[in-house]
């Protein structure tokens, strides 16, 4: 379970998060919607531990652990996964090697047995197939020369292999056509279950037609200004952010 209380954060001395309160119980999928500049990406980076983001107050615990005190890789091993809005290219680094290295690093950190190359490839191929990804995507260099849709699918493949307890999807729908969007949504839905939670950050309602959230939160000016059920996203789509965030009008 992710529990955030009064979380404040800034970047270069500029306050972005102004006291976030949010609870995502185990097994639930929550959506965070908000206009540009509301702090959506900052929230995902603060939770995953990116450098340059200063926590000014509040707490964030995940499964009872104070994640803000942990290194990014420790958070990953604890089961936190961030699907990047802009997946990063790693020239010369083979995708399969990268994934296996990451998976085994996490398994090692958790005291689990590592997978050998054969076990890993079997697993990776099966997941890739399920996500309608061609096998050669595993052989290519990480995100190098990938189309926007391929990059996002690669994020979902990584998520499927790493089996996180909490996935944060940072505008994973941006730049996706409807087919790619469905594949991504299917990938997330396949993981849904009692031990998987997700925080789906998005600007648009569209993604939430495919990943139906348990709760929807509206983020504006670094605060959650409204929470509700899936219907809230529809209301937002109809009336725009202005109804909830007067200043954004």
């Amino acid at each position, binding site marked *: 379970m992710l529990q955030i209380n009064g979380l404040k954060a800034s970047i270069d001395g500029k306050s972005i998060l102004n006291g976030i309160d949010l609870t995502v119980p185990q097994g639930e999928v929550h959506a965070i919607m908000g206009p540009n500049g509301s702090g959506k990406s900052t929230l995902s980076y603060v939770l995953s531990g990116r450098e340059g983001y200063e926590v000014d107050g509040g707490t964030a615990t995940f499964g009872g652990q104070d994640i803000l005190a942990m290194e990014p*890789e420790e958070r990953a091993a604890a089961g936190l996964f961030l699907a990047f809005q802009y997946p990063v290219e790693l020239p010369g680094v083979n995708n399969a090697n990268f994934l296996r290295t990451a998976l085994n690093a996490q398994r090692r950190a958790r005291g689990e047995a590592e997978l050998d190359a054969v076990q890993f490839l079997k697993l990776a191929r099966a997941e890739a197939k399920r996500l309608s990804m061609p096998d050669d995507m595993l052989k290519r260099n990480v995100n190098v020369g990938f189309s926007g849709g391929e990059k996002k699918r690669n994020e979902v493949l990584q998520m499927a292999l790493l089996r996180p307890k909490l996935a944060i999807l940072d505008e994973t729908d941006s730049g996706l056509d409807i087919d790619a969007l469905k594949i991504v949504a299917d990938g997330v839905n396949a993981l849904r279950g009692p031990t998987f939670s997700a925080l789906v950050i998005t600007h648009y309602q569209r993604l939430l037609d495919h990943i139906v959230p348990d709760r929807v939160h509206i983020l504006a000016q670094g605060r959650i200004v409204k929470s509700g059920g899936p219907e809230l996203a529809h209301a937002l789509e109809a009336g725009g952010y202005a109804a909830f965030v007067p200043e954004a009008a």
Partner: protein
Amino acid sequence: MPAVAETLDTVQAATEGGYKWGFSTDIEMEMAPKGLNEDIIRLISARKNEPQWLLDWRLAAYAVWLKMTEPEWAMLNHPPIDYQDLHYYAAPKKKAGPKSLDEVDPELLRTYEKLGIPLRERAILAGVEGADGAPADGDRPQVAMDAVFDSVSVATTFKSTLAKAGVIFCPISEAVQEHPELVRKYLGSVVPTNDNYFAALNSAVFTDGSFVYIPKGVRCPMELSTYFRINARNTGQFERTLIIAEEGSFVSYLEGCTAPQRDENQLHAAVVELVAFDDAQIKYSTVQNWYPGDSEGKGGIYNFVTKRGHCRGARSKISWTQVETGSAITWKYPSCVLQGDDSVGEFYSVALTNNYQQADTGTKMIHIGKRTKSTIVSKGISAGHSNNTYRGLVRIDRRADGARNFTQCDSLLIGDQCGAHTVPYIESRNPTAKLEHEATTSKIAEDQLFYCRQRGLSEEDAVGLIVNGFCKDVLKELPMEFAVEAQKLLAISLEGSVG
């Protein structure tokens, strides 16, 4: 298998810190007194029962050396080297001269074991028992090793398999005794004694090294490998390697180095000469990880090497692949003289410097024959306070119609205290030549590191992964097992360079 994963495993295992292979072996040494003069050269020559012509050759080289001065054009700084303060000859004390590993000092064998170079070395040691023509062990390629322990080669394996193919692979001191006509014909024919200061010094005092002769039309049945170790206090190492590939032959030669940790700087000045005749191919791969000095820049090996290949025949090919992670100072320019028409020269290099290491390395491609082709791929990685220079020359002779060169120099900076420099020289005297040069300089981006760490990799593992990716074009040129070792080295060499 995915070597990157194994690289990271190894980093985990090797993080106790310090130079992993920094130990010395306690073996009785026989040493010449310090200093360099004609008498020392006579002593070396006498200890090795050399013929008169070789002694004369050494003395002539010494006379040339005395008139020369150390080159100063490289981007390197070091205190002056006192050439009189070195031992020029050291040998493990031996009874008669071991014919097999059984006769080798057990302490020496333990040293090899401690070196722990995983796959190959163990295969070789295990393979010695049934080495007489025994088939290769499963899927593992056969490797023959000529081990140089300080100045004297003490163990040579797989000799009989090679002998059946007509391949000669032995210490050069042995070749002087057994095949004097070959040594005399080719020694100094690629790197003449007066080529440069360090080559002249080597010619005067070289103690041992490898000799390889591949007869006409023979594809050498295994990869040939030499391990060098510098093991005696204040002993300058002057290896001399000579490889001759006759018409239509092929050989792949591997050279790897480790050295014990020392406080004092140690001088190394090797010379390697390669000769390739019509349609012959020589692939020469090096992984160099000599002691680089401590994190303050104290100690470390001074490595001044002259390596040159001569494509004498038409359609011959010489490839240099090097992964340089060690030494306090590296001065090294493996080169190709492309004399035969349609001959090909290649240079693939990774040079990694950390802490206070300095590397000035690159290549020379001299195009003489028609339609000669050369490729240069250089990857320089600088971390800590180190300085890393690529220095390369591409020269197209007037007669070299249709010659082509492609050069790519990439530099990767880690941290903001290090330096990367690229100094390409291009001289073309033929208007039909085509030359391309590409160069990039980059830093490891924060978002790349964060991306890897978010997936569970430690910062150091992430750097190792990104660096190995950066070097991939070169690493893929190495024989498989050597590539695995090289990847580990790159990761280990970068320990402590981030954070």
